[in-house]
C-alpha cells in the first residue's frame, strides 16, 4: 500500500485529494507509477501526459522518474509551485 496525494489543479481535475493504492509488482519507481496511473485514462491520461510539467515528491522530498517507490511511501503529484 502507498498513499497518493494530489494538489492544486491535479486535485481538482482528478476530483481526489488522496487515495491508498496497492502497487502492481512491476511498479517500482516514479516512472512506472506514473505510467500505471496514466492507464486509468481520461483526466489521468491527460494530466500525466509526458509533455505536462507535473512534479512528484516521495515522502515529502522532490523526486525524479528514477526515484524508487516502496510500500508505505507517501507519493504526491502536483503542478510546478507558485507560492511566494
Amino acid at each position: 500500500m502507498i498513499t497518493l496525494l494530489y494538489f492544486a489543479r491535479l486535485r481538482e481535475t482528478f476530483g481526489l485529494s488522496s487515495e491508498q493504492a496497492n502497487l502492481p509488482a512491476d511498479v517500482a519507481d516514479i516512472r512506472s507509477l506514473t505510467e500505471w496511473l496514466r492507464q486509468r485514462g481520461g483526466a489521468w491520461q491527460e494530466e500525466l501526459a509526458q509533455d505536462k510539467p507535473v512534479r512528484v515528491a516521495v515522502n515529502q522530498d522532490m523526486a525524479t522518474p528514477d526515484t524508487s517507490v516502496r510500500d508505505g511511501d507517501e507519493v504526491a503529484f502536483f503542478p510546478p509551485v507558485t507560492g511566494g
Partner: protein
Amino acid sequence: MTVQIQTEDFDLGAEILNLRRGNTGIGAVASFVGLVRDLNHSTTVTEMTLEHYPGMTEKALAEIVEEAKRRWNIIDALVIHRIGPLKPTDQIVLVAVSSAHRGDAFAACEFIMDYLKTRAPFWKKEQTEAGAHWVDARESDETTAQRWTAPSA
C-alpha cells in the same frame, strides 16, 4: 531559524523586533514582503487562494533556510507564508534575515525567496472577473533560482 505557515496576517514590525531581540551583534536586517496585486497579466484579481502541502511545506522551507545558513554568515532567519483566501494588498509572505554585515543578509534573503518560489509546495488560484484559474508557474522564476547554482557544480 523559524518557519511558519498560517492563515492569519503577520505584523512586519513586530516580527523584525522579535528577530532582533537579545542579539547585540546584529548589524543588518534584510526583509521581503510579498503582496497580492490587484492586477496580474492585465486581469483584475478579486481574490486569491493559497493551497499548500502540509508537512512537506515546512520541511522544504526549513531546508531552504538551512542551505542559506550554510552559504552565508547569517545570525537568524524567519519565513512566514500565509495560506487560504487573500485579497489584493494582503500580505502573502515574509522573509527576514539578520547578520553582522549587510551583504550576507541581502543575499540570504533573496536566495530564500528565489528558492521558495520554485521549491516550496504552494499553489495560487486566482479569482478574476472572468472566473477562477490556477496561476501558471513562471519560467523566469526557475531561471532566477538557477543563478544561485554554482556553474561548475
